[in-house]
Every structure is written in structure tokens, then in C-alpha cells.
């Protein structure tokens, strides 16, 4: 499926919906214990990472609180 991740096109091999937990693994997202995930403009609770899924065309942002900006 094709996604937009942090503003850039990204493709993952899966066709079926993929959980956020699996997506973090597939994209080798850094420091997963600290990441915030925004799916199509909505911030997800960490407790929803297992249940929430992405599908073709979705927009995903990974956000960290460590950087300087807001």
C-alpha cells in the first residue's frame, strides 16, 4: 500500500490493513517508546497502536517531543 509518511511518499508491501505497532516495525521508526503517531490528522493514544490500522492512501506523521520546535 502507498502512504504519505512525514510528508513523503512511502510504500509497504502489505495490501491488508496494518496495525500502527506493525507499521512502526516495518518502517523501522526510531525510538518507538517516545513516538507520537498522527493518522490522517488525528493523534492516536499509545494504547491504540495495536488496534488502529493504516490503509492505502493514509497520511501518517511520526512526532517526537525531543526536538527544539513546537
Amino acid at each position, binding site marked *: 500500500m502507498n502512504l504519505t509518511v512525514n510528508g513523503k511518499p512511502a510504500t509497504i508491501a502489505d495490501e491488508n490493513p496494518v496495525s500502527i505497532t506493525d507499521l512502526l516495525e516495518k518502517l523501522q521508526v526510531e525510538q518507538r517508546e517516545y513516538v507520537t503517531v*498522527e493518522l490522517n490528522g488525528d*493523534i492516536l493514544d499509545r494504547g491504540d497502536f495495536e488496534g488502529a490500522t493504516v490503509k492505502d492512501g493514509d497520511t501518517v506523521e511520526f*512526532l*517526537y*517531543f*525531543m*526536538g*527544539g520546535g513546537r
Partner: protein
Amino acid sequence: MAKTESSLRFDTRLIHGGTSPGPSGATKSPIVQASAFAYDTAEELEDIFKGRAIGQVYTRIGNPTLESLEKRLAAIEGGIAAIATSSGMAAITTAVMAIVRSGDEILSSASLFGGTYSLFHDTLANYGISTRFVDPTDADALRGAVNENTRLIFVETIGNPKMDVPDLAIFSAIARENGIPLMVDATVSTPYLARVGELGADIIVHSTSKYINGTANSIGGAIIDCGSFNWQSDKFPHFDQFYRKYRNFALTARTRKLIHKDFGACAAPLNAFLNCEGLDTLSLRMERHCSNAMRVAQFLDAHEKVSWVNYPGLPDSPYFEVANRQFGGRFGGLLTFGVADKASAFRVINALSLAKNLANIGDTKTLVIHPASTICADYTPEVKALMGVGEELIRVSVGIEDIEDIIEDFAAALEQA
């Protein structure tokens, strides 16, 4: 099967928790003595500023050596994140200012380190933030002191220098009942005596300069976010944008991206490295600090020239029961005792040879001070009484020397009392 970090026992977590291999497999996090960090493209730096990517920007905001200390402290305390600061007072100031605003009130234990008392009573009062100081062992008075403006409850695990031990379960219950976070200064108890997040602290602050550093070679502080407080609250509208984006990291995000960044009280990389070094041996040192302090307390308690001894490990201490329950039969390295009067206290201090007369605690060396004429000299008589600081009082930070030498030093000095 490899154990997960949180399943490691405390002494192992002290050494391995939150660590990762350094360059070339180095077993120490290097001292990254750099002010700023360069990137190949403008896009990379933009992503970091947007929070889309992880990366260091500028040491005031973050630095790999500081991050190493932060990750270790978070792992050791069971927190979700930590921020290293330039000193313990910087940690308290930064953490408190991240939470309260002008017009808000702090409900604080009346038994406080002098610097914290001064911050709350004088400095913050000048910015429209007032503090109610209440006896931390009086649950009814604490409950009664909460009002509609209270936004933070603050307490020390072991009051310095009063040596009282508040029941954190009571503080935590009052905080929960009122939807207010509980900040605990655990400098004197250290994570060795208790992981206070497990006892209800939402935010833990440390002066890492003390027992965590352990050898008094650098100043530092830390804020540990336990991730337990829900910042989505009408009482904290200034957290909205941070809660929306960072959820249970809202406090750390607001602190790091706003207050800590703006106040600029960042730790020096070398100091952060030295405080990391201390963590490795914290348990071993604290074990000896505790056993030595108990022996000194027992010796002083039996001495004819000593009027009283305040050490929570003595069974007749009013704080023994709470301390025993909270700290698992360990009582720390700090105690106070009284002699006849100020002149007598000065003679004892002047006659000590091993114990150093200085304003610090938590060193390997045994340290003494006469608080009434030094660290608490600016207090009014009423405040001194509230803090339990009499003219006859000597504070002792018991070191890890051979206990017989420490006791002989006090025995000889007390002859001059």
C-alpha cells in the same frame, strides 16, 4: 531469552537500564563536548524542528551525553522520560514553572531544603505564584490547604534538614482527589531507598550532585516524568497543545520545548557524564551510607553530651514507621543531632578532623554543617522553628569511610562540646 529492561532487578537496572552501546562499542556514553549539531540538508533540520525526526540541535535543548543520563534516570525511576538540568535547583525551578502560572498556588511541605523554600517563598512570590507551607505529617492540614487555585503539590521524601518522613500515600491521595500533580524531591532518599513513582509521585526531581553523583565532583539535576498525570484538564489549559500532540508526554514536551529551552538551565555534558558514572555504584554506596549513618545515629543517641538525635532509622523516631514502610528498612545517610547550644555546636564542628565542614550532602566523605548560621541563616526565627532548625543543631551527611574512624572522630570532637 533476553530479559526486558523493566524486568531487571534494581541493582542491575542501575548499571544497564537505559544504556546503549557507544561508538565502536564503547561501554561508556562519550562526552559530546559540542554546542551544536550539523545536518546535510535544510529538510533534515526542518524535520527535527517539526518533531518529525529525532536529532540533536543545540546542547541547551539536548545533547547525546545528557540524553544518556536522561534515559538511565528514566529507566531507573520507572519514568517515561527525563530531562537533565544544570543543578537540582534548576530541575525544581524548571519543573515547577512548566506547571504553574501567575495566580496559581503551590501546596508545599513546610519541611524543605533552604534553596527550595527560598524559591517558593521569595522568588516565585514575586511572579504571582504563591505557596502554602504545611506540616507534611498533618494530613488534615494538607487536605484543608488545597483550594481552587492549587496546581501543584510538592514534598521531599526526607525533609532536609528536619529529617521528617512524610507519608507519600497521603500526598498522592490528596493530589488524586483534587486532580493536581504531585512532585517529589527524592534527592535525600535516592532511587535506592524508593522509586517514588511507585508511591504516587507524578514528577520526580533530583539534585544529582548529591548521592547520584556520589563523589561531589559535579553539579546536576534531573526531572523525571512518571507519565501518571492526565494533563487534559480544565486546571491546565496551557497544556492543551502539548497534550493534543504528545499525550502522556505532555509535561516533558512542554518542559523541554518551552520552559527548559527558554530558561536554558541545561546540564554541561561533562557533568552529565560524571553523574552517569555515579549511577553505576549508587547501590553499593547507599548501602554503606545507610549502615554507617545508623551506627553514627546509635553512637550519638547514647552519648551524654548529645541532647537528641533525629534519624528516621532509630526506632524511637516519630518517622520510623513511615520510613520503614516506604524505604524497605533503609533510612539514608543524613541525620541531625543537638548539643547544648550554638557555641557547643561550633566547638564540635571545629574539633572534627575527618568530617568536613561544608554545605553539601551525599559525598563519600562525612560532612557536617551548622544550618542555623549558614544554609538557613536568612530564615526568620519562626521559619527556623517551622523547619526544625535550632541553634544547637548539627547536620551530618555520613560518608562511606570506615565506620570506626567516623565514630572516633565524633567521639573526640564531642569531648569539646
